[in-house]
């Protein structure tokens, strides 16, 4: 299989990425996050969302992220966690896409923006669902967590894209 410019490859690629993202979502649901602030997590599945965004653009990455969030939360979360994940996902993919347009940022910066945006989306969803702006109190904690985990995930994504180059060349 030398040239992967046929139409089936991107379809299969998205399928594999989605499966991997769901697996990472499951792995993440096993971690005991015993922080006082709800909403803090590593964001492992974002590795895959970022790869899809880099390789196939926002038109594929946004539905990919939403589909992943939907299936993952139905399987390992709850209806409420689904709403938070959706809000976070939309904002995060859009922010990562925008930062990707700025040349002096790399994958890590893109992921940092995504992490922070994801947590801002969650806060907005929480204000709407809980009916009180009091949850804004958590914003600084969540933004720090988003920046740090985003950076880690971004470095991971960079490594995967670099080491697995042969898998990501198509189109």
């Amino acid at each position: 299989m030398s040239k992967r410019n046929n139409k089936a490859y991107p379809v299969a690629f998205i399928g594999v990425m989605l499966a991997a993202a769901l697996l990472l979502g499951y792995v993440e649901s096993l971690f005991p996050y015993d922080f006082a602030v709800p909403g803090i997590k590593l964001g492992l599945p974002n590795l895959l969302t970022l790869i899809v965004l880099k390789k196939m653009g926002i038109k594929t990455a946004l539905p990919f992220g939403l589909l992943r969030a939907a299936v993952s939360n139905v399987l390992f979360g709850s209806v409420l966690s689904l709403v938070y994940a959706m809000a976070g996902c939309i904002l995060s993919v859009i922010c990562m896409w925008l930062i990707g347009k700025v040349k002096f940022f790399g994958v890590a910066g893109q992921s940092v923006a995504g992490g922070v945006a994801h947590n801002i989306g969650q806060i907005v969803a929480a204000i709407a669902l809980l009916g009180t702006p009091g949850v804004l109190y958590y914003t600084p904690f969540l933004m720090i967590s988003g920046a740090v985990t985003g950076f880690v995930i971004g470095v991971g994504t960079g490594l995967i894209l670099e080491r697995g180059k042969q898998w990501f060349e198509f189109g």
Partner: protein
Amino acid sequence: MVKKADIILCVAVAAVMGAVIILFSLFAGNGKTVVITANGNSRETKLSVDNTVNITDSVLGSNTVVIKGGTVYVSEADCRDQICVNHAPISKEGEIIVCLPHKVTVEIR
């Protein structure tokens, strides 16, 4: 792969937000009232009076809020994440304990 701007972005966000947290904890006074919001209905009680409130408004589950010696904590909740129960007691203005699965918030004002 990691550019200078990436590190600057990450550190800048963390530093600014860290400063916000420090400033907040320095200047936040002790609160006076406890505002419990469950499923959109809120009620207020005094922080200075020891009290135990059972919240059963939410069809999703129940929480028990304890006010003791000027601090507030959630002693029981029948949800699976138990984030609100593990939360440290709160006493300062603006602090909040949230139970996302039951749509319950306990706020100090």
